[in-house]
């Protein structure tokens, strides 16, 4: 018997899958399924910490402390169950929960005060946060919150009044800041408050009920962009537009207004607050406040733009880091089966047909993964692999060629600017043509990319999504890059139209509007008409699916245009706000009418991180570089705008600083500090060096954690095997020693 036992235990330790374990050592499994355990085995099992039914020692203490005879306590995690031998034969119900709790009650009496004092020792927000995160029922939490103070006072024999003394100081109640907000310091609180503003909540709930988390992430992204633009607009409006509006420049002459100018931006609009040309280089000294501190419009122009960009940079970095933290995994696990089983059911979906679609989606995914596992990596023949490779090369060639030709087309079109203004109508159409061509490319080329993705047949759906996002991004970057090069490299240098900043501002305004018009057309034609067509004519009950990646990239593109144009058209964020507002309602209604939920899986958290990263990295940083280059290097036009007769826009700040230095002490110190900062390159290298060091340190920490996790997993595995072995040995010895056991060892 002993040898057989050791054989089975050896085979058990060498085999890895549970199925082979079960088949090869029936004895061991049977011995683990006994009901008549020896007392020694029982004692050993009862003292094992991993078999406790609550999360940690602290919670046991908490539960035990709440358990008092004669008091009605709401159990959540340790519901007392009767001990029945028929349930779960694998594991003995050793002691009832009452008994285990009674044991821990004794321990609890000593630990109770420690726990309460622990909670008290924390600050109010920390303690509240910890209390909220405990997996106890609400009534228990409220008792913990209230009674410790009372109990302690009772013990001390104090006859305090029956007012409720809390664990946390009463200051916590009054501070709105500490309510439900994960961060404690003030700017952090305001930033997170921005995210939790309750605009469009009911619409988004309806949408998530029908379409799930993926589509919801698009609308959340839209809402975030709306708030960013609102912030930008408020800063620019208060400090730039309003002062200029109150003191209009003396040399403004208005032409008549025609409706087409709303689209093209020339004429009446070009001499309004909308564009750069209207702003003058006056210094306002008229009102009482500004006679003390004269308000210099050029300086205000530069400062508002810089400060708005800086604020938005901080907001984006913060939301990016938060989103990255949520989606970060120490180990990469792709297509994990258990993850699909437990984490893929979207609880937000409430409509019956969508739930049915979701079930179909999950079962398809599971079937696919199972077939992958059972068949494994098929050995593809050399011919097949070569053919796959060729298809990939062809698809990439098509995509890159189309991107190159569209960029070339835009460049040539912008060079051949029709100077022959035959009629006003012709001039307007000419201006709009370029913007229409750009938007047309943005609309048509993703169709080509979809076709390429369809013929390519990628391995996993997430690869497909990433590849399509990359191609779309490349298209937009190349078009915008070509345009920016043309504006800054050619027009600004040659100073071709006299007021070139106005021209660039108008171009961006037209691009933004055309983009909006084309989106409306696409929503109408692409979704509404297609749905009618496929239902009435093709007689198929399949509605189009909302393409989340493409729509988000459209949003990012529109936002990039806004950020590029804000230096030349300060009211552009207002246009973008109006556009986003209309877009929300249009997309929502189009979805509800025309589209159905997607059958493909969509990892919302990961994708949201990718989108915010895309918003920051190519979009915002590109716009910031463009603006910085313009402000620093480019010579402003000499006949319009607040920076006429200066070598670059930054010079106005220098002049202003020189003027102010003589008047105010603090400002002169600031200016001196700023000069010292920028002149000495050490000041630039030192912070960057520190940042790089911190990043390296963090990477090493994560690496170390990864290694520790692997080691601990192995340790748990080995411990489990050891326990199994010991239990069977113990049980075997017990059975050997009891003479009246009804098992095999009759004759010995």
């Amino acid at each position: 018997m002993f040898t057989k036992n050791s054989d089975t235990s050896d085979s058990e330790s060498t085999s890895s899958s549970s199925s082979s374990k079960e088949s090869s050592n029936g004895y061991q499994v049977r011995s683990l399924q006994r009901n008549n355990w020896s007392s020694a085995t029982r004692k050993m099992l009862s003292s094992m910490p991993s078999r406790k039914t609550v999360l940690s020692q602290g919670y046991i203490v908490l539960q035990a402390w709440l358990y008092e005879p004669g008091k009605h306590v709401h159990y959540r995690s340790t519901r007392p169950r009767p001990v029945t031998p028929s349930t779960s034969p694998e594991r003995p119900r050793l002691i009832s929960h009452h008994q285990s709790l009674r044991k821990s009650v004794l321990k609890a009496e000593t630990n109770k005060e420690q726990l309460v004092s622990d909670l008290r020792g924390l600050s109010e927000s920390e303690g509240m946060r910890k209390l909220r995160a405990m997996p106890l029922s609400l009534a228990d939490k409220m008792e913990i919150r209230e009674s410790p103070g009372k109990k302690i006072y009772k013990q001390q024999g104090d006859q305090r009044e029956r007012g409720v003394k809390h664990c946390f100081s009463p200051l916590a109640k009054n501070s709105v800041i500490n309510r439900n907000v994960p961060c404690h310091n003030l700017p952090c609180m305001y930033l997170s408050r921005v995210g939790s503003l309750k605009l469009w909540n009911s619409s988004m709930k309806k949408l998530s009920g029908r379409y799930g988390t993926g589509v919801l992430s698009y609308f959340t992204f839209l809402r975030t962009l709306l708030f960013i633009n609102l912030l930008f607009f408020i800063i620019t409006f208060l400090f730039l537009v309003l002062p200029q509006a109150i003191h209009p420049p003396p040399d403004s002459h208005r032409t008549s207004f025609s409706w087409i100018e709303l689209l093209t931006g020339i004429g009446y609009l070009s001499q309004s607050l909308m564009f750069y040309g209207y702003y003058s280089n006056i210094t306002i000294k008229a009102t009482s406040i500004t006679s003390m501190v004269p308000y210099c419009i050029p300086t205000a122009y530069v400062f508002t733009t810089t400060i708005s960009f800086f604020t938005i940079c901080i907001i984006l970095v913060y939301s990016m880091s938060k989103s990255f933290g949520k989606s970060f995994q120490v180990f990469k696990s792709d297509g994990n089966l258990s993850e699909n089983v437990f984490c893929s059911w979207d609880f937000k979906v409430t409509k019956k047909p969508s739930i049915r679609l979701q079930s179909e989606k999950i079962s398809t995914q599971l079937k696919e993964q199972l077939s992958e596992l059972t068949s494994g990596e098929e050995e593809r023949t050399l011919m097949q692999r070569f053919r796959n490779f060729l298809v990939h090369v062809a698809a990439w060639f098509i995509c890159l060629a189309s991107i190159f030709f569209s960029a070339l087309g835009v460049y040539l079109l912008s060079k051949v600017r029709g100077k022959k203004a035959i009629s006003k109508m012709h001039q307007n159409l000419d201006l709009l043509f370029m913007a229409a061509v750009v938007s047309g490319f943005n609309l048509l080329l993703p169709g080509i990319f979809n076709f390429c993705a369809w013929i390519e047949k990628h391995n996993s759906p997430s690869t497909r999504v990433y590849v399509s996002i990359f191609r779309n991004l490349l298209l937009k970057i190349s078009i915008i890059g070509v345009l920016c090069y043309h504006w800054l490299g050619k027009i600004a240098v040659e100073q071709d139209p006299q007021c070139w900043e106005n021209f660039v501002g108008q171009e961006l305004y037209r691009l933004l509007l055309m983009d909006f018009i084309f989106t409306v057309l696409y929503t109408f034609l692409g979704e509404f008409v297609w749905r009618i067509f496929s239902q009435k004519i093709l007689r198929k009950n399949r509605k189009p699916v909302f393409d989340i990646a493409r729509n988000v990239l459209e949003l990012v593109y529109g936002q990039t245009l806004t950020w590029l144009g804000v230096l030349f058209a300060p009211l552009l964020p207002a246009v973008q706000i109006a556009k986003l507002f209309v877009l929300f309602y249009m997309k929502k209604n189009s979805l509800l009418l025309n589209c159905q939920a997607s059958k493909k899986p969509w990892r919302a958290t990961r994708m949201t991180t990718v989108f915010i990263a895309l918003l920051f990295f190519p979009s915002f940083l590109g716009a910031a570089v463009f603006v910085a280059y313009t402000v620093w290097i480019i010579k402003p036009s000499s006949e319009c705008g607040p920076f006429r007769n200066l070598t670059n826009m930054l010079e106005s700040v220098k002049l202003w600083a020189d003027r102010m230095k003589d008047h105010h002490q603090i400002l002169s110190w600031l200016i001196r500090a700023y000069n010292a900062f920028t002149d000495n390159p050490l000041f630039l290298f030192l912070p960057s060096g520190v940042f790089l060091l911190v990043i390296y340190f963090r990477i090493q920490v994560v690496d170390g954690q990864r290694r520790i996790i692997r080691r601990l997993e192995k340790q748990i595995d080995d411990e489990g095997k050891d326990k199994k072995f010991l239990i069977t040995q113990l049980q075997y010895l017990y059975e050997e020693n009891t003479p009246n056991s009804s098992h095999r060892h009759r004759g010995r």
Partner: protein
Amino acid sequence: MGNKQTIFTAQQLDAYQDCTYFTRKEILRLFYRYRDLAPQLVPLDYTNHPDVKLPYELIGSMPELKDNPFRQRIAEVFSEDGEGNMTLDDFLDMFSVLSEMAPRDLKAYYAFKIYDFNDDDFICKSDLEKTLNKLTRNELTEDEVKMVCEKVIDEADLDNDGRLSLEDFQHMINRAPDFLSTFHIRI
């Protein structure tokens, strides 16, 4: 700010705010949702802690839960008596855990209890089979269900006892960033 409500005392509202992830307005809104399920049973005055329990049928008929295949388990896990009949405290607790702000560990704990159909504090094979059948509406064949269960236990079971304990489950959830966004009900 609107302090003119007479449903709860100020201390009660503060206690609810401290112990859940909801603000004052949301708690009152949730109370009205609770009351709308059975206006004749739920009094408008909670200052003296009335003992009112709504039966499971009413809770399961809420539009947010009506078609969810796990609604019965959700109600059972969060209810005091384990049968799905919920008091206002249970109701608030349930939606607080399922809200956006609840941390991952708390959600993982309750998700574990929801998927543990036989309440033995382990997710064993039969629990997994029931979960799968609810997820896929019985579309997978028996063999496929068995294979999936085996593979899941293989992947997630760390101490090799043939079923998932809470720690195994939480370890697996930590590798799935989408859990936070899917285990969420908007109310």
